[in-house]
């Protein structure tokens, strides 16, 4: 396990340009817009990073590995390709944690409900990664997976209030946003950042997202 993790981590660094989007971009936006964009902005940047990793990086790697036969090659060894999937999830989570740590370190203030923030971050990241696995499953190849992921990411960011603050969105969009995983994720991150407890409905939507998309991923994921 440790060797696979090590080699895959090296391969991630070799393709490390994506870190510009998963870490650099949110950090940069926070630096330039943090002071003018309102109190929810740091939480939105944490979600931007998690979304980029889950919807673009994770499906890109997994779909490419399926396309190239890497997963299939692994199934001929005593080690299950499931381990490769686990390793990719771990690496994405670690990069997400690094990004979030940097956002906290260089952002305006720190999350005041730390335990709540960590819980929401982990649950939300898990739910988004489950959605990313579904994207990896339906994408025909490694090139199209990040494109499909990005196409799914932008409307999600919109309903989550990334481009236009939530309160200016039409009622129907806000309701969609409340069930979009991304919406409750952003709101719960924002609430815990401000020192409040996460709202139960938000946690429930995140947990439901994890269960539904996780279950779907298990059903539709193809190794070859």
């Amino acid at each position: 396990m440790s060797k696979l993790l090590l080699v895959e981590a090296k391969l991630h660094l070799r393709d490390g340009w994506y870190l510009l989007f998963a870490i650099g971009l949110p950090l940069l936006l926070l630096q330039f817009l943090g002071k003018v964009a309102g109190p929810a902005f740091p939480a939105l940047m944490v979600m931007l990073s998690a979304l980029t990793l889950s919807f673009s990086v994770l499906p890109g790697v997994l779909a490419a590995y399926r396309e190239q036969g890497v997963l299939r090659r692994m199934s001929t060894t005593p080690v299950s390709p499931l381990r490769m999937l686990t390793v990719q999830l771990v690496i994405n989570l670690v990069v997400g944690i690094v990004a979030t740590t940097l956002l906290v370190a260089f952002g305006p203030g720190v999350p005041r409900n730390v335990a709540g923030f960590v819980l929401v971050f982990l649950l939300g990241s898990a739910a988004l990664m489950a959605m990313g696995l579904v994207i990896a499953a339906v994408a025909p190849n490694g090139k199209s997976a990040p494109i499909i992921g990005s196409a799914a990411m932008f409307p999600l960011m919109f309903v989550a209030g990334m481009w236009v603050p939530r309160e200016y969105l039409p009622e129907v969009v806000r309701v969609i946003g409340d069930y979009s995983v991304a919406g409750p994720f952003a709101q719960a991150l924002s609430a815990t950042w401000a020192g409040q407890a996460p709202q139960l409905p938000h946690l429930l939507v995140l947990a439901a997202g994890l269960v539904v998309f996780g279950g779907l991923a298990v059903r539709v994921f193809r190794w070859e």
Partner: protein
Amino acid sequence: MAMKVIEVTNLHKRYRDQVAVDDVSFAVDEGEIFGVLGPNGAGKTTTVECVAGLRTPTSGTITVGGRTPLEAKHLLGVQLQSAQLPEKIKVWEALDLFASFYRDPADWRALMERVGLADKRDTRFTNLSGGQKQRLSVALALVGKPRVAILDELTTGLDPQARRDTWDLIEQIRADGVTIVLVTHFMEEAERLCDRVALISSGRVVAMDAPSALIGQVEESQRVRFRPSAPVEDAMLLAVPEVTGVRRNGEQLTVTGRGNLAPAVTLALAEHQIVPTDLRIEQATLEDVFLALTGRKLS
């Protein structure tokens, strides 16, 4: 009797509306190079994928070392068609990684030397030539110290030199006692390497034997062409037991037959003080065997 290391009995594999393997049975002896030969789409790859535990047979049984394919992954080393590694992984990293998948792996450094990739140690997979990728693939198939190596279309797409190098490598592996199942549609490869071959057509085994035995079954498996130094009567040649036919094309004679045709013919000519000039011996190939059995061409 050599021990059977792989036994496939009445294998049948169907995908939705299509039968990929109809009815295939064979047994592979410990230590032999067993060829699975047939045209594209005959079911060769599906057959070995079932043996490797990558696919579940619709019906029939497969044992590898007495176990089911899924329980035998540590006994098998598999090389599959086309790329199978991350583009940017380096040669040594791939070997080191795959070695970690097995409980008692081979020394991957020695293996890297042996397949001639020591100077490509730090080269990324995507920058290797076709032949180098194949050799790495062979090394990865061997890194778990398998009892059986399954090599699928190993030399497809290689230039003639790389192909010959790969053949040498396969012979070395066998010399180490590894049983090899070689999937190919190259006649020459099968004739040169395999102890026995199974000819597969439309999902069925049409013949299984040593290549020379299969070729020997073909009528007129031998052909001798020459220009006699003096006129020769057809009857004189037809009296030779090995000869089945004589054809003339100007001064050139074509004698067809079986067995040790060429020595028999030259001996008969010598008895009449006739020297065959421009002597050429042509042998039937597995291609001819396949054509004779199925009425179809292999490639």
